[in-house]
């Protein structure tokens, strides 16, 4: 019987969730993108209003789905729905936009409240010249030193793999307890 497991990729608007999933998904990411109308959210032309949906087939019996949450706050009612039954989650943070750090922190706390599953924080866009140093971000995000905060570049496959494997290793440690 085919078994499916899922992980959720969350984070503030334009933090790179869609790109992260696209980089490793074996199918074209099913995303529902719409033109943005809100003035404050004109950073990119379109945004994910429902969800991204990527797939990695492990073998004949196991499939991993990656779900991205909608970036805009008015769709946060979807978070809880998407979180149900996840193995773990990844909080994407745009390293070049400190104005989103507080929101990232809130999202992290919300998800942690929804489901006590393992998680990692990915400091995305570390290849950009404006990127904050990861350890500066840890202080800014008020992340305890035992919370994994990983430098990441969502369009780089190796980087995405590292983040996913780190999360899976944390899940493994949880299971082994």
């Amino acid at each position: 019987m085919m078994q499916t497991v899922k992980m959720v990729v969350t984070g503030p608007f334009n933090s790179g969730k869609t790109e992260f999933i696209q980089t490793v998904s074996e199918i074209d990411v099913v995303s529902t993108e719409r033109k943005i109308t809100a003035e404050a959210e004109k950073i990119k032309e379109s945004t994910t209003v429902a969800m991204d949906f990527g797939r990695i087939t492990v073998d004949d019996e196991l499939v991993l789905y990656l779900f991205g949450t909608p970036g805009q706050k008015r769709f946060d009612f979807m978070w809880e729905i998407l979180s149900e039954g996840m193995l773990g989650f990844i909080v994407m943070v745009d390293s070049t936009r400190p104005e989103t750090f507080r929101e990232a922190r809130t999202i992290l706390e919300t998800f942690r409240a929804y489901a006590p599953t393992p998680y990692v924080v990915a400091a995305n866009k570390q290849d950009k010249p404006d990127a904050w140093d990861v350890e500066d971000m840890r202080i800014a995000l008020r992340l305890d030193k035992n919370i994994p905060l990983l430098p990441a570049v969502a369009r780089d496959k190796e980087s995405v793999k590292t983040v996913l494997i780190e999360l899976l290793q944390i899940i493994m440690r949880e299971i082994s307890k």
Partner: protein
Amino acid sequence: MALKGNLRDFTITQLLNLVNLAKKTGTLVVESASQAARITFREGKLAYAEISNEDSRLGAILHKANVLTPAQYRTISQRAGNISDKELGLLLINSGHVTQRDVITSLQNHFLDILQRLFNWDEGQFYFNNGEALPPDRIPIRMDLENIIIEGSRRLREWEQLQDELPNLDLALKFTDRPGVNIQKLNMSVEEWKVVSYINPKNSIRQIAKASRMSDLEIRRVVYSLLQAGLVELVRPEGIEQSLPGLEQTLAGKSKEEQKNLVNRLIGRIRSL
């Protein structure tokens, strides 16, 4: 890497904390609409500060601190020319007009005053120039940031506590059903009355703030006091408190070995991508 942003999102207290913890050396430049401040740090300690439109030379600082008389300050301003602060300080100390302690204390107080004013800036672009030293003619001090941060933290703590109490401004308020409470007899501030006049389950706190022209901090203060007084309650969206199953429940029905096997297969597959 770049350390820049806006005080709207990252406060002075947080910046000082970062500089302190990371023991940074360099100059923090903060620019508001009308002023710009430059704060220099050495190994995480305050070394120097200046703000635009204000004379930050030693003579002016000592005069402001009443260490120099107006006549002495005038003489220095008119005759000292381009003498550096270091030279001026030595001359004044050697001539017995001031003590070294006078100089250090006056500089410390002046720099602290600038920093304390910065705490009141809630908006302004900032950037940190790594390694940038203070102007060479100025006198550096070496001041721990902890006490400065504690003062700033008091303000930040209030903000954070209020955020914890009221994390979601999209919630609405409604009056509690408390028999015997006549709201008209309560002693409330103008701000509290403004908010009370808008209380309705249809109005979100954010909308009330907008209508009454209050900042997030101000509306949180008022709503928090109303909540503490038991006059109002938050109307939460249905289901928001419902918690979802954790990892154990997600993998329920499998033995530990099966769970580990599943995760190992996932790891193996991702490695092979």
